[in-house]
């Protein structure tokens, strides 16, 4: 028997083996028959066919229609009004692929690649094809099939370039030759490092972005035949150029970043999102990328503890409330997407979550397309799968009703003509009440759950009787325990289930005498239905508005520039007028248009009485790390190629908090992990704006350099060069030498005629050296983190040797020791007001630093390096008055005009001057007193912070939170799995922040 069983399995595997395969274990057999489905509602590509017929043969659809002639050798399935849909396609999975092995890196960092003959970075695994590590996994396949998938596209989700994926039909009773639809479907990318290598670079999202850029420059150059050596990873990229490209972004901001990269290199990425795209859809919809969206809606939090509820954020609560609307919002905004089951912890929630999305605005048509046609075309298989059409694979779902109907279940999932039964519709439901006589006693039996795991409740004259029940195949066995003549006894019955209205079978009674029986199910009144309908919750339909950003204090709409006449204020002009009392300022079209006494109000201008108030230009922070997802790319000692502009995070609440402190612009700097850091972003704090609108328009490009303990890894154990200040100098010299050489090579090449160019090797484009070249040309400015006088002096000398100027020394705590040299070099100093004592190199940091540098003729700014501190930079300016007797007027410039000068934006901001941007702050009093409060902050004439409106927002946050918590309490029912309220820690990001 056992042998026969094995043989059968073997046999079935070969069912559709290739014709030319040789058979030695029996006779060669082939399926000649047609499978025909009749009386079906067929979701064909031409619309729904009711009472239709579908004919399948050899895995393909032969015909669809009404009243078709059936071939003679047909196996007919009468679907009795069931529905047929094309089965779903999963494009984001790691089906059957071996998980990557994490490389234990040990203690020391790895800076070199570990692979030979491939790209210089281990996280580029473009030559890898996941198919080589694939084995068909029946259990996993069933999981997918049960929720409607017929085909999966699978890749190992590891690395920044992950290599290529493959597509598989989820067919159990076949071998790979039948299952594989495409052995190499698409290329896959992400911003995440490979587990298989400890190579340090890239250590940040911006590093990953830079790496992808360089990779494309390199493959472009390589494909022109310019390289003298081989690179198998690049060759793979060139070979796979025509394949579709997927990007696993997994975060709404990364979706945006991937879309930008996609546009830059014309890669047409298909981007896997996170389910939170409704938050930045206004930006995403400007790209034409197809997205892949999960439906892993968050579970409700356990909100039974009011103390913990305090810790929950609006964004967390809204996520729970808004996530089901994500797909509908994407549809409304015209974004093309497919739906993935990935990220779902419990795949069984897949369809119910899609139904939830449909209730929240997603149309059924788009939902179905997102599961079939869209993913099919993403993997270039849209001529074979995703539709019910002649010639397409017979990948069919047979469902009890319309696919997204409330009670619809998937009964069968056919893949390439191979049947998989999901729900056995032949099973008979015998749930109900029966009465049976045993030993002249009457037992009332209640059977429930007979389709899956039956249970019974038995009573004799209202006495509970113990029992045991089991269901094997279609046979139900029941044991009853009762006392007969005060002696414990048992009786057993056994019945094959064949009718839903009666049971008949045989048994042995309490005296072990056999008997046979037939009993009918009692008719039940319709009271079960009444119990089911849930109590409708009054506010269950409330959906929070999506704000910009979608956090507390987010905006419903972006403020517009206003026309305002501020009257009778004290104006801190930062110009030759100095501080002028009882004066007016008028703003219009985002600019300052008039300053003076007793000005006339232009027609239709709003008037604000600013008596007793002070008005200044907005505060500018030269050194900030807010609103960025990455700060340090410490993987190399130079990372000139990375840019904070690539990783702006507009959701950072510190943007709002800084507005509340009168800050209007900031330079978001790379950190201080390495001597040559990354490029800065200079932004205006336009809370709620799109990322593109936050960049300071026309700002000059900057780069961060760093000196001192951080770059030489003094306060932790490091191994890369440099480990001393001596080495730091040489890093700069070496890189600028190389940049000079690079510049020379390109200049020579560019001076050649087109004909000459053909006969020489084209130089390689290097993003890092390009950036350094910009510095040499004076097109990019350096802001260098610095502490002690020796290194400050050194960097000025290095710059002078290479004929450029350091623009700013930031932190510059010993600037006062070389202030004369700084003035001579023409470098500015952006320092802390009074920090010291935290590192050895700040031993001699003194709060008089700003004053001494200023008196020596250096342009001085005070910075924060900390988004908590930056919201009170006005008080840091006061410290310049306290320490070192700077006049109030000059001290105020330390946080306004001087940083504007250092950032080369003083032609637009930094003072109250006609023609400059209306970036202004209304203070309740003297702007440097800690008894003063920010009342209003304007950027380009638009009101971004307003004290009155702020109070209103606080109330709205409170109200919305209570509505959402009440709504969530509706799901806080016994037995429902809930999440612990888990707000993220707030981090005061500084120079030393690392991302991964």
């Amino acid at each position: 028997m056992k042998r026969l069983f094995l043989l059968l399995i073997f046999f079935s595997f070969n069912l559709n083996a290739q014709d030319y395969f040789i058979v030695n274990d029996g006779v060669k057999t082939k399926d000649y028959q047609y499978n025909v489905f009749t009386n079906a509602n067929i979701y064909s590509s031409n619309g729904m066919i009711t009472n239709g017929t579908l004919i399948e043969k050899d895995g393909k659809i032969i015909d669809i229609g009404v009243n078709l002639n059936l071939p003679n050798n047909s196996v007919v399935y009468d679907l009795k009004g069931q529905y047929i849909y094309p089965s779903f396609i999963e494009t984001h999975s790691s089906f059957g692929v071996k998980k990557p092995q994490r490389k234990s890196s040990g203690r020391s960092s790895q800076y070199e690649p570990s692979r030979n003959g491939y790209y210089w970075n281990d996280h580029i695994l473009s030559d890898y094809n996941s198919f080589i590590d694939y084995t068909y996994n029946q259990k996993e396949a069933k999981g997918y099939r049960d929720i409607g998938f017929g085909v999966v596209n699978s890749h190992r989700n590891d690395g920044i370039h992950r290599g290529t994926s493959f597509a598989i039909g989820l067919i159990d009773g076949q071998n790979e030759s039948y299952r594989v639809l495409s052995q190499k479907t698409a290329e896959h990318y992400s911003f995440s490092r490979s587990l298989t290598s400890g190579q340090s670079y890239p250590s940040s999202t911006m590093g990953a972005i830079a790496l992808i850029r360089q990779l494309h420059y390199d493959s472009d150059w390589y494909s022109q035949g310019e390289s003298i050596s081989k690179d198998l990873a690049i060759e793979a990229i060139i070979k796979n150029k025509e394949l579709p490209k997927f990007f696993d972004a997994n975060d709404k901001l990364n979706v945006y970043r991937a879309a930008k990269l996609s546009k830059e290199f014309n890669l047409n990425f298909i981007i896997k999102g996170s389910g939170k795209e409704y938050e930045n859809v206004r930006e995403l919809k400007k790209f034409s990328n197809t997205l892949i969206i999960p439906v892993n809606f968050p579970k409700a939090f356990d909100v039974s503890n009011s103390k913990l509820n305090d810790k929950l954020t609006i964004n967390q609560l809204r996520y729970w409330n808004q996530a089901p609307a994500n797909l509908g919002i994407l549809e409304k905004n015209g974004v093309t997407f497919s739906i993935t089951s990935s990220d779902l912890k419990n795949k069984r929630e897949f369809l119910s979550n899609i139904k939830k999305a449909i209730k929240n605005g997603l149309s059924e048509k788009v939902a179905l397309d997102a599961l079939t046609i869209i993913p099919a075309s993403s993997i270039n298989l849209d001529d074979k799968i995703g539709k019910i059409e002649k010639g397409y694979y017979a990948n069919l779902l047979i469902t009890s009703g319309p696919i997204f109907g409330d009670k619809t279940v998937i009964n069968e999932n056919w893949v390439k003509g191979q049947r998989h039964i999901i729900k056995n519709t032949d099973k008979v439901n015998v749930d109900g009440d029966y009465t049976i006589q045993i030993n002249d006693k009457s037992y009332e039996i209640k059977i429930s759950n007979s389709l899956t795991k039956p249970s019974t409740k038995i009573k004799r004259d209202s006495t509970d009787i113990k029992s045991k029940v089991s269901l094997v195949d279609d046979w139900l066995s029941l044991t009853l325990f009762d006392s007969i003549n005060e002696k414990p006894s048992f009786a057993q019955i056994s019945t094959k289930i064949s009718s839903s209205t009666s049971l008949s079978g045989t048994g042995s009674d309490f005296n072990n005498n056999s008997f046979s029986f037939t009993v009918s199910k009692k008719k039940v009144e319709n009271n079960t239905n009444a119990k089911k309908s849930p109590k409708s919750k009054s506010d269950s339909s409330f959906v929070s508005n999506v704000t910009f950003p979608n956090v507390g204090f987010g905006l419903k709409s972006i403020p517009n520039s206003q026309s305002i006449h501020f009257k009778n204020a004290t104006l801190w002009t930062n110009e030759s007028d100095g501080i002028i009392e009882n004066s007016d300022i008028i703003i219009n079209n985002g600019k300052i248009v008039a300053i003076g006494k007793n000005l006339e109000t232009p027609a239709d201008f709003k008037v604000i009485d600013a008596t007793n108030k002070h008005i200044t230009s907005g505060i500018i922070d030269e050194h900030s790390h807010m609103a960025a997802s990455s700060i340090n790319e410490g993987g190399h000692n130079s990372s000139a190629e990375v840019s904070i502009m690539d990783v702006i995070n507009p959701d950072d609440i510190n943007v709002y908090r800084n507005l509340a402190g009168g800050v209007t612009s900031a330079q978001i700097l790379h950190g201080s992990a390495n001597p040559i850091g990354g490029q800065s972003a200079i932004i205006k704090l336009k809370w709620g704006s799109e990322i593109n609108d936050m960049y300071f328009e026309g700002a000059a490009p900057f780069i961060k350099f760093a000196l001192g303990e951080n770059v030489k890894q003094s306060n932790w154990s490091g191994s890369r060069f440099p480990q001393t200040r001596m080495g730091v100098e040489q890093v700069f010299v070496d890189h600028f030498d190389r940049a000079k050489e690079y510049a020379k090579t390109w200049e020579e090449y560019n001076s050649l005629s087109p004909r000459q160019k053909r006969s020489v090797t084209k130089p390689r484009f290097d993003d890092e050296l390009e950036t350094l070249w910009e510095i040499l040309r004076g097109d990019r400015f350096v802001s260098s983190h610095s502490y002690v006088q020796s290194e400050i002096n050194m960097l000025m000398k290095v710059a002078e040797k290479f004929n450029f100027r350091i623009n700013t020394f930031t932190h510059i705590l010993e600037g006062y020791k070389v202030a004369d040299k700084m003035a001579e070099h023409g470098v500015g100093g952006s320092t802390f007001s009074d920090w010291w004592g935290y590192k050895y190199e700040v031993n001699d940091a003194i709060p008089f630093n700003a004053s001494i540098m200023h008196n020596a003729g250096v342009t001085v700014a005070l910075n924060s390096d900390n988004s908590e501190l930056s919201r009170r930079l006005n008080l840091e300016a006061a410290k310049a008055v306290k320490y070192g007797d700077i006049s109030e007027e000059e001290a105020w410039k330390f946080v306004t005009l001087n940083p504007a000068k250092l950032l080369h934006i003083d032609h637009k901001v930094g003072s109250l001057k006609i023609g400059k941007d209306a970036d202004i702050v209304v203070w309740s009093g003297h702007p440097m007193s800690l008894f003063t409060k920010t009342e209003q902050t304007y950027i380009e004439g638009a009101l971004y912070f307003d004290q009155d409106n702020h109070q209103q927002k606080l109330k709205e946050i409170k109200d919305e939170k209570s509505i959402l918590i009440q709504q969530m309490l509706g799901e806080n029912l016994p037995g429902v799995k809930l999440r612990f309220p888990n707000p993220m820690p707030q981090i005061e990001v500084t120079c030393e922040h690392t991302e991964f």
Partner: protein
Amino acid sequence: MKKIILLNVLFLNLIFSQQTPAPTQDKSVLIFGGITHVGDGQIINNSVIGFTDGKIDLIASSEENWTDKLLNMFSDSNNKKYDTIIDASNQHIYPGIIALNSNLGLVEVDAVRASVDDDEAGTYLPEVRSIIAYNAESKAVESMRPNGVLVAQIAPNGGVISGSSSVVQLDAWNWEDAVIKYDQGLHINWPSPYTFGRWWLGEERGLKANNNYNKQVNDLKEFFDKSKANMNLDKSMNLKSRSMKAIFEGESTVYLYADDEKEIVDGVLFLKKIGINKIVIVGASEAKNQLDFIKENDIPVVVKQPYRFPQSVDSDPRETFMLAKKMIDKGILVSIDPSGAPQSRVSIRNLPFYAGSFSSYGIDKEAALSMITLNPAKMLGIDSEFGTIEIGKSATLFISKGDALDIISNNVTHAFISGRNISLETHQTRLWRRYSNKYSNSQ
């Protein structure tokens, strides 16, 4: 008389070359014309303050301008002459500021491990005494004086019971000379009911329950029970128990570090139940819903300084500035915990500005001053000597040209500790002069 005043003013202007630390007061001092902020809420305008042998022996005010004749009146009536007379007209006089929960003198440079002495290895360390590690000559310590911070609690960190703290004045040759009160407090870090997911180990990010909370609390209870049982045994090998005796007998105060409201309630009830009543809560950053509980139990609070992020991203950005007012309105005795600010140790010199910032959100300015003078003196049990400007108390005070609680006007010209005219010169002011001179000479 006029001549004397001028001479003495001249003399005092040379404070930069004074001896550090200052010698014991041997010349009596009279300060006239200033606005005296007593520290208990009172203001004395146009005041005169005299002190001799380290003690304040004269406080008066006048409606008229101070003239030689008027000043001589005090000299005559007390039958003595003040040796040094300081004209503080239109200036402000404050009691010396007192810093709680500081690791001044225990750490010199955070990043240099060799200079870090505030966190001993171990969990329950009642026997560990901060005072003996206190470096009276620390550069951080001297930098407090020019801003008016003259007295500090030197507290250990780390573990569950960190050790005992002592109270020092900030101008001394060594720790023994610096001490005002030995081993005044025992510092207990109440376990946190929450932790954050260690995502680098694959846990979910964000807050989660600390599953060990009950165990950690029980362990602490066991330690207290054992200590109480053994503390009077005349045996060696019970150092820890003996070290706990002072708090059971009310001789020293428990400083309970608790931020979350659950920590506060659990911690206070625990200590009260075991018979400890001298408790001060330190931190209390999330205490806003337990203020009634704190008041009912009559527990002083050392509230975290305001320069930090609010509790949640949705909180009012100024939430941290408003907490102290809520406590004071309840009638709780409040001081300020300087920890958690950027560069928190060296920033203790900003203590007057923390008070000023609290004041800017609704606390009366004199009440804000009490938060860093009288209130901490009470908590430390040194209020009979320090914390206010009153006759008979230690002459520990300073003069500022402007409002000392506002950065822009804080400008300390004189400071006295027990009448000693202390130097306002520091490593930092020396460097300032050195390099200012360098550039002015080269011009």
